[in-house]
């Protein structure tokens, strides 16, 4: 009986599909007339702070982090839902910052997104067929005559049947809606899919179905996936490489197995230790992995963002913010870490 696996692939040769360099995105906070009169400083929320990473064709890059780490904002900036306040995004050799608004709109069909909440990611007043038909025709994916056929193909691809095409989203369960969302993303044949917590809102048994589906589709269609999640177990399962973010900055990137077995950044170590495990029963001797609250992204700590909660922090960490450096090169990819005292 052949063991079906979703094992990681060796790093692809050549240019990465997606290259993000020093990307920044900040949001100005409310600044009213009174503030101006009182000459108060304009405050900004820096959601994404000089983030760099790359994603190769055909691979799955997992992106993990807790709230306020900026992973969702990063995803939306890459896909052009937000305009970056700094840095650049180069996709398939094309620099997005050089494109006009019109060109941007056309090129963005190569990157599509799958959203977290199956209950708000579908238009409640459009049937499945209407949604798919509209995008197939808008992007000239096929002729008018072929549309219905193509819709059937797409539905089958994600495990739905044709007789469900004329229903409204309210007739479907959470797992089915996610499948529709995936079909919507695939209809325009994108090269990259950004999946923003696609299974977090689903029950465990349905999660497994959707994860299997994503793995199958990746294999079948040669997709590249940026998989964002807070669930470390799922990320480990599906990703070839993993990136960890904390308070808007990228703190570590490494091939999956390396990250999970020998993390270099203290935050990664803490994150892995904190995740509830089913292995040994720790009811009677459990200790917290890390103390302290997550700081607010508005008032960032000085120097290294993690220093207030880091057991290894010293004077250098309090004053200087570490750069993302390459620690080692493995066949699956480089191991990058932004720490003054990496653990490996």
């Amino acid at each position, binding site marked *: 009986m052949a063991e079906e696996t979703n094992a990681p692939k060796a790093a692809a040769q050549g240019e990465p599909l997606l290259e993000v360099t020093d990307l920044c995105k900040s949001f100005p906070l409310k600044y009213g007339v009174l503030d101006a009169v009182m000459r108060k400083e304009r405050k900004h929320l820096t959601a994404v702070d000089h983030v760099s990473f790359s994603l190769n064709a055909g691979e799955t890059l997992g992106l993990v982090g807790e709230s306020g780490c900026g992973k969702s904002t990063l995803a939306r900036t890459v896909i052009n839902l937000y305009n970056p306040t700094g840095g650049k995004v180069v996709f398939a050799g094309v620099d997005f910052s050089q494109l006009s608004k019109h060109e941007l709109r056309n090129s*963005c069909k190569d990157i*599509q*997104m799958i959203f977290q909440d199956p209950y708000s990611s579908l238009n409640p007043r459009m049937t499945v067929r209407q949604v798919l038909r509209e995008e197939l025709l808008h992007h000239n994916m096929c002729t008018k005559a072929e549309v219905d056929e193509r819709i059937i193909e797409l539905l089958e691809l994600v*495990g739905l049947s044709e007789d469900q095409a004329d229903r409204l989203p309210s007739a*479907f*369960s959470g797992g*089915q809606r996610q499948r529709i969302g995936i079909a919507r993303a695939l209809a325009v044949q994108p090269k990259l899919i950004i999946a923003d917590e696609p299974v977090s809102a689903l029950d465990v048994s349905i999660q497994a179905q959707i994860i*299997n*589906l994503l793995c199958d589709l990746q294999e079948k269609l040669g997709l590249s996936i940026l998989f964002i999640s807070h669930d470390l177990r799922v990320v480990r399962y599906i990703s070839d490489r993993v990136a960890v973010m904390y308070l808007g900055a990228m703190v570590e990137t490494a091939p999956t197995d390396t990250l999970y077995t020998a993390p270099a950044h203290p935050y990664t170590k803490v994150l892995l230790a904190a995740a509830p495990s089913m292995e040994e029963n720790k009811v009677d001797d459990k200790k917290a992995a890390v103390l302290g609250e997550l700081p607010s992204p508005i008032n960032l700590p000085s120097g290294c963002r993690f220093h207030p909660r880091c057991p290894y922090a010293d004077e250098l960490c309090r004053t200087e913010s570490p750069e993302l450096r390459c620690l080692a090169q493995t066949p699956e990819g480089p191991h990058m870490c932004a720490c003054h005292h990496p653990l490996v």
Partner: protein
Amino acid sequence: MADTAALAPKRTKVKKVPIWRRSPSLVIGAVIVALAFVVAAFPTLFAPNAAKPVTDLMDFTAMLQAPSAEHWFGTDNYGRDIYTMVIAATRLDLLIGLGSVALPFVVGTLLGLICGYYGGKLDTIIMRILDIFVAFPFMVLAIAIVAILGNGVMNLLIAMWIVSWPPYTRLVRSEVLIAKNSEYVQAAKTLGYSDVKIIFRHILPNVISSSVVYAASDIVMCIMTAASMSFLGLGVDAATLEWGSIISSGKSYLLGGYWWISSMPGIVMAIVGLGFSLFGDGLNDLLRTKD
């Protein structure tokens, strides 16, 4: 895929509850409103003399008669059959009601969509203008406008248009603010759809329901306002039959005990108003449960 072979759509057949039990107000309201429309369209079916000019109805042998088998609503001081007059006036009143609402509904919704979606300076300007309009009491502003423009149905409609648009804008704008951040709109943006397409094809169907429900009760409000203005002598001229003017013509006879001249059109107006309100209520429930 074998995974989903057994998956059936979530909703298994729940007993289909018939519409009159689910929303009795919708049905009752619809019946009343439909009846009003039929009366407006074919007044002669209900009152054979309804098409005649008002002066023809005068009958000096039957002045100020109480409601009876011959004159269901009684007669006024000119001997005119109140029932016939009320039936004849239905068309105009419904026209005023619908006409007053149609334009503000369209324009107000459009403004709400634009303000909500684009925000920024345009939004601020339009909302402040809206605030100015809303600062005036509805009725006072309408009366002032009619007083300036003069009597007549068209001027009445113009006055109604000017005062009625703010609520639609507000309703739609707040719904758009919510819808704009939802994930399906973000998905539409990632698919590269133009703003116009997103606003009208994706957002509009989802934000319009509260406007529609509001419009139903707004029709009642407009009929009432028009009737009030006619009562005051503004709006339609004395020769045109309109519920408010009939009520007005009977006001000096109330103390004399001739209640039917003013009350009958009032009761009819109340029933029609109730019909629209119930219909709007029922529509609200229906649209709510569909979501």
